[in-house]
Each structure stands twice: as C-alpha cells, then as structure tokens.
C-alpha cells in the first residue's frame, strides 16, 4: 500500500515573540491508504497541534509534512483542499443552513467562482449524506439536529470534499456513548470501504483500541509510538504513557483501573460472567483477591456463597464481607 501522509523530522509547536516553543520534535510518521489511525495521548501533549500542523493550519517549526509525496507548505491552498478534509472541534451554527447546504460546501474546492454544482457534484453530495445516514434529515436546519447528528454532517462535508485523507480533531467529544460508538464505527467503515486514510485525535482510549488499525500514541517526553493497538498494549507502551498514582492501564482488559488501596484479602471462584463484576466491586471496596485468603467467595449462576450463606446481590455480599474479613 502506498503512503498518503509522511512526516520527516517534524517538530511542532508555537512561535511566541520570536521564540520557538517546541511541543514535539523529530516526528517521523507514516500513514497508508485506507487506514484508520487514532492519535491518542494525555491533554497538553500536543495532539491538536500535530493535527493542525498536518492539516496545514499551522506551520511546522522544523522538518516537513508530505501529503501525496508533495510538501504541504508548497501545495496551493485550493489544491490542498482536494487532498485533505478537516473535521474540527469548532461548533458550526449557521442560521437557516440545512444539512445539504453544509455538505454542499464540501464541493467548494471543485466548482468555479460562481459556485454552480454539476449533476456529478450533487451525486457526490447525496452519496456523502447517505454514508452518514442522514438522508431523512437532508433538508433539516442545523439547529434541529442533535450534537451527534451535527458531527455526522461535518463528516459528510469532509466526505463530499472527496479527499484521500481526512483529519478529525476530537470528533467524539461532547457525545454520549451510543453516538461515540456510532461515529467511530462509521469512520472505521468509511476508511475500509472507500480506501480513504483517516486520522482521529481522541482521548477515548477504549474506543481507539477497538476501532483503530494503527495507533499513534503521544507522550509528553518520548515522542510518538506507532503501531497496531494490541502490540502497543502488549509491549507496555500504554502503561508508560498513562502512568499515574491514582490509576493504571490495565493490560488485561484495555481499560484504566483505579489504584484502590487494597488491604483486605479474599479469594473468589465460580461463574465466569459474574466473576468480572464481582472483582470490580471487590476492588472498589478494597479487597485484594489472593489464593491463600481465609475467606472464599463461591459464585454460582444464581448467588454468591460465603461460609455456606447464600447472598442474592453484590450489595448483600459487600455487607456480609465487612463482618467476616
């Protein structure tokens, strides 16, 4: 597969009063066609700065960004609009504008100064609206839409721009869980079906781990680690990137777990489904699960058993434990 985006020894950051403030340096990234990449990292490590630099909204401090093997700075602005499309965090609120109006703006880089769209343009616009499942709302005004739907409108606009590369800055922020999942699935499908390359900056770690083909894991000090999500997990990169006193990256389930102070010991055995949730409750209540513990909890599909006493709920279990441990 050919690569659509490359960076060569790229340093990103800001110029402030002639002083250059470098946020990240010597980045050598590569993005292949048809790949969905999630850019993750803690707040303030430079995710947005990188995305803005890749989008050409701000200049690299040093090094180069190559899109389609052409240096980004040297591509003319309307040419650039045919190579990469953006979905930003800025809220778009336009009086009277319909969904179709916004998506049609995606065709702007292709039409003449008078702005008339051809049949083919309308076809592409409709296709883009269908891809984000907003056909039924094409003529609705923006202010009649939910936040998730608005985000899908902006994605449709980017699709209508018909670029090999789409960059999205925090597309799932401000959305509830079902909408977040839907947007991620949609982007995943789009990348694979249309062969577009998609870069998403996000701090939804679990979502990124499931949807991304590759992950660019950004740390404050050690640059960017690139790889297939599972490799990064197994090599312990996540653990390093997200270290903290109060939580840790749990390689077993790809989530963050809180570092509860564990003082009391119990042992658990039995039903698998109930086991997971029982362990969570025990961790929160401060119980360490060890084999040599005196108290043993037996889990059956219907109840929990301690010292031959049957308990019907986790709540009862925790109350009972307080008495025996």
């Amino acid at each position: 597969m050919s690569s659509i985006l490359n960076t060569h020894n790229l340093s990103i950051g800001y110029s402030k009063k002639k002083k250059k403030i470098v946020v990240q340096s010597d980045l050598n990234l590569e993005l292949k066609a048809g790949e969905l990449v999630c850019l993750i990292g803690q707040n303030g490590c430079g995710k947005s700065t990188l995305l803005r630099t890749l989008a050409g909204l701000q200049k690299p401090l040093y090094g180069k960004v190559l899109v389609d093997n052409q240096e980004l700075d040297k591509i003319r602005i309307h040419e650039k609009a045919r190579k990469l499309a953006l979905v930003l965090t800025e809220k778009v609120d336009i009086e009277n504008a319909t969904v179709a109006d916004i998506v049609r703006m995606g065709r702007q880089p292709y039409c003449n100064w008078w702005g008339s769209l051809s049949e083919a343009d309308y076809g592409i616009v409709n296709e883009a609206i269908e891809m984000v499942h907003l056909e039924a709302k094409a003529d609705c005004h923006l202010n009649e839409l939910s936040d998730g739907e608005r985000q899908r409108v902006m994605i449709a606009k980017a699709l209508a721009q018909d670029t090999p590369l789409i960059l999205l800055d925090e597309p799932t922020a401000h959305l509830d869980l079902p909408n977040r999942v839907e947007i991620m699935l949609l982007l995943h499908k789009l990348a694979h079906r249309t062969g577009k390359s998609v870069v998403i900056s996000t701090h939804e770690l679990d979502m990124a781990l499931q949807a991304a083909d590759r992950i660019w894991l950004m740390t404050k000090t050690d640059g960017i680690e690139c790889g297939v999500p599972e490799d990064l997990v197994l090599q312990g990169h996540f653990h390093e990137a997200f270290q903290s006193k109060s939580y840790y990256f749990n390689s077993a389930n790809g989530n963050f777990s809180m570092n509860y102070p564990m003082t009391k010991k119990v042992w658990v055995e039995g039903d698998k489904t109930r086991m997971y949730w029982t362990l969570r409750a025990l961790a929160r209540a401060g119980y360490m699960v060890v084999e040599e513990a005196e108290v043993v909890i037996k889990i059956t599909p219907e109840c929990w058993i301690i010292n031959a006493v049957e308990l019907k709920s986790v709540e009862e279990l925790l109350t009972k434990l307080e008495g025996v441990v």
Partner: protein
Amino acid sequence: MRSRNFIYFAILLVLTMLLFLSDLAWGSITIPFREILDVFFGKGESINTEILLNFRLPKAITAILTGAALSVAGLMMQTLFRNPLAEPYILGVSSGASLGVALVTMASGFLPAILMNSGWAMILAAVIGGALVLLMVLGVSFRIQNAVSLLIVGIMFGTIAGSVVSVMQNFSNPDAIKLFIMWTFGSLSAVTWTYMQALLPIILLGLIMTMMLHKRLDVLLLGENYARGLGVSVIQTRFFIILATGLLAGGITAFTGPIAFVGVAIPHIARGIFKTSTHKILIPATMLCGASLLLVCDLISQMPSYTLPINTISSLFGAPIILWIILKKK
C-alpha cells in the same frame, strides 16, 4: 425551493419599483403618475419637471443605492464576524468620515479657504477620514489571526475618532456645530447629479465585488479554519470584504452622512424571508429589501408639511428589528 425564491424576488422587485414611483410622486407637492411618465418620455414642461428631474429622481436613486449598499455591507460584516449585530460602520468607517467632516466644519479656521463652503469639501473630508480608518483596519487585518480582535480594533478606532470630534465640538462656535450636527442627521437630497457621477460608480463597483465574493462568504460561515480547509485564503478574503465594505459604506456616508441601523437590520429581514444562508440568494435579496426600506424611509421623511431627517426614521425602523432579533434568539 427555487420557484419559491423566484416568486419572492419578483414580489420584491415589483415592490421596489412601486416604492420608487411613489417616492417620485409624493412629497410636499404631489405629482401625478401621468406627469411622471410624460417627463420620462421628454414631454413635461412644467415646474414639476424641474422638481422631478433635479430633486426627486436623484434622491430616489440615492435611496436605492444607500439601502442596497449599507445592507449588503452589513451582510458581509455579519458573515465575516459571525455576529448577528455586526454592521457596516463597525470597522470605524463612519467615525473616520465624521472626523473628516468635523475637521472641515469646525476646525475650518486652520484649513485653506479654497476648501471651504463647497459640498465637495465635506465629501472629500469624509472620504479621506473614512479611507484612513479603513486603511488602518486593513493594515491590522493582515497581522491579526482572528476576526473578533479586528472587530475590537474597528470599535477602538471609532471611539478615538468620536472623542476627537467631541473635543473639537468643545472649541467650536454654535454655527459650525450646527452644520456638523446637520451632517450627522444624514440626507439623501444632498446627492445632486454631479455627485451622483462619483457615487454611482463607487457603489456599483462595491456591489459587483460583493457578488464575486459570494462563494467565499458562504464558506466563511463555517468559521475561518473550516474555510481554510476548503481552500479559501482567509486573509485575502478578509481584505476584499473590508475593501468592498469600505467602498459601499464609506461611499454612502461620504455623500449622505451616516444612516443608522439599515446595515444591521436588513440582512436579518432578508434571511427571514428567504430562509437561506446562501449568499448567492442573500446578496440580491438584501439589496432589494434595503432599497425598498430606504425608499419607505424617504417617503416618510418627505411627507407634506414636515421633514424629518432620514437617520432618525431609519433608526425608528431599525432599532425595533434589533430588539426582535435578540428576543427571538432566546
């Protein structure tokens, strides 16, 4: 959608024409429509011909130009700043113009006598004052990243100009102050055929520039970063918008004096009627709405038996519309 817009345009066009004819017909003397037609076909001989050709006709044309120019300039400012209360004077054009006029009327002792007591002196002063402020704002616009700061720069220039005018008023004689105050009331009848030869090309140029910008204005509604992402050079577009606004608002203010509230209110009326955000439709719609509203204002201001300043009437129309916008937004 298209046919509905077509009907609205037809209605507005007919309305503007009717108002134009009424503006010619009614006033301190009523001229019958028959006679108006006669004059147009070169048959009229009476005193009415004189009134019509040299007074009412240029005034009615000025009303149309003023309405169209200020409203379209307002539309551009509202789009550029993405603020429903932005207006053509927000960049300080009118303050600059009024500073120029104040210099001519009140500080005239310091100026060469040849410049005085001619209509051109005031116009020239207004043009120079407005253009200077505009040039400063344009200069700043290249150095500033976001449009909101530009808005503040415009307001600050305006405040400075306003304060200087106040200081001058303090040291002027009552006659000079009265002359200046009269200018601030605005007057459509100040534009004679001689002035029209200068005003008309300026406004037409401004309107043509605006129409050429329509596609970029649409994209600017998404915000400056999205606009960049769609291949629009924001700095360049901003330059052209400010230039076109300068021609439109500056040109009108120089010849008629400041006319308030048209620029902020009319674009909202046009949006309300056409229910669209597309500038290809909004620009001509705003022009027609502005032209008809200014014709109505002019009709009221030239009612028999009393004459009101046009600036007062346009404010009486405009201010309630702004209130309505704010209440509707809630």
